[in-house]
């Protein structure tokens, strides 16, 4: 009686694709094969999660989409354009936050705009808006060392939103954040995603997190990574976070993913 839809790996959504990964392979110098002929489509305006056993190449794939790493073969298209490097339509949220310790929250959030040469007054007013959006109003003049892990990642998220990219790539954004802060942050993120009509690609190794925040979950196999399964948890939106965590569809999806990933543990 599950409402969760499962697709075979070959499933392709033809309409409204924002990011398209085509036969991407990655072999690191030294011969480590991280990705093997991965093909995936990421629908526009949705949150898609890459989930898999640790060391499976999820982050490698995300960095290839970001243009921070070159693929060994294959190509990535974003909104129909081939990825040759980082681009203005993509923004990255880093696992270790990657905040400038010598810059205030305000400057950190505005930093992407600063690099693009946006005048001070303009970029600071944009940054202030997003600082408010992620719930850090009043912390503009603080330095990162004075903030908790969760607050630092909110700064990282605000910085990614401030450049108004259509695709936000998040590399295990909550992994350095403690469990309780993480739950609150996840709830806040769902709220933000509803307001921002953007495409989110999210890497995590937490099953619950993946099911809780995603429209679509891509299960990757162990290295060299291939797409094992695509799952679309069919949760009614608009119910409270606590209801989601008790919803049968949520529990079924978590269980299904756990069963699929269990084989990789030894």
């Amino acid at each position: 009686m599950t409402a969760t839809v499962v697709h075979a790996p070959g499933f392709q959504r033809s309409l409204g694709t924002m990011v398209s990964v085509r036969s991407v392979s990655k072999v690191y110098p030294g011969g480590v094969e991280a990705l093997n002929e991965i093909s995936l489509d990421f629908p526009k305006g949705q949150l898609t999660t890459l989930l898999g056993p640790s060391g499976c190449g999820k982050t490698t794939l995300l960095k290839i989409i970001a243009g921070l790493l070159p693929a060994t073969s294959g190509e990535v298209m974003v909104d129909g354009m081939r990825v040759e490097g980082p681009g203005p339509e993509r923004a990255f949220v880093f696992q270790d936050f990657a905040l400038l310790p010598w810059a205030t929250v305000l400057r950190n959030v505005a930093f992407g705009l600063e690099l693009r040469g946006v005048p001070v007054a303009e970029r600071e007013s944009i940054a202030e808006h997003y600082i408010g959006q992620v719930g850090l109003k009043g912390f503009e003049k603080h330095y990162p060392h004075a903030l908790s892990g969760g607050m630092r990642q909110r700064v990282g998220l605000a910085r990614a939103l401030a450049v108004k990219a259509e695709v936000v790539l998040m590399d295990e954004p909550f992994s350095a954040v403690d469990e309780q802060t993480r739950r609150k942050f996840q709830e806040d993120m769902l709220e933000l995603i509803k307001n921002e009509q953007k495409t989110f690609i999210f890497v995590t190794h937490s099953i619950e997190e993946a099911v809780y925040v995603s429209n679509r979950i891509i299960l990757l196999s162990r290295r060299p990574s291939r797409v094992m399964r695509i799952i679309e948890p069919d949760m009614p939106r608009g119910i409270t976070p606590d209801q989601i965590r008790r919803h049968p569809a949520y529990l079924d999806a978590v269980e299904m993913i756990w069963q699929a990933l269990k084989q990789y543990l030894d």
Partner: protein
Amino acid sequence: MISVPTSSRASAARTNPLRRVMTHTITFRILSVITVLGAWEYAGRRPISASFPSFSETFAAGWEMAADGSLSAALMITIVPLVIGITMSAIAGVAAGIYMGLDRRAEWVGVPVFIVMQAAPLAALIPLLVLAYGVGLATKVTVVCIMAVPAIVLNSFKAIRHAPVSLVEMGESFLGSREQVIGKIILPAASPVIFAGLRLGLASGFIGVILAELLISPTGIGDLITYHQSIAEYPKMFAAIAVVILLSVLFMEALERIEITLFRPEKRAQ
């Protein structure tokens, strides 16, 4: 809209004044100085050696030399080659280190030279320098540079090379040009280690200038030390040594102030 608990914002604890004085860093610094000077005074009064004066004797001797002008005259002679040498080493050394940190070929050519320089017993080169430059200012400046440059260059190099990868990646992902990534990320991130190298270089430069004054031409503070030793005026000799140490500490402190003012606003805000 999302809200964050505001409790951490008002975390500045209001404690009573006595407690604040007792836990202030300055209190501990004063305590540390008093402990060292007290131990010195005790050791000098026991006495552990006939040639080891107590702190009070040394202080009085230092005061006397300051009053008769011999101290300031000697200081001027020592400081000039030191400042010239350190300034030259700092500018050239930091520039060379940064360049080698950013360019692999420059690294391969340059780094071995400075590692050899750092390893070489430079006092052995001093006779050679005297032959080349005589016993004047040029030799002293050269000794300061030779002593100071390796630490400055190698630390600047390492600082650049070890700039956090994720910050550089962040700069690239937000479309920073190579110049922007260097200027806005790599250099500020490297500045603490560059300044650590400058402090090491400064300390070595002090060793260099005193070495030159002891080995080449008895002038400046080095002369005060050797002269008072030869006539067994130990309090004055120790006063001269203490002045060198004090001067070195003051230079270090000044360097740290410069660093924090220029590159570390987050430390200023603390």
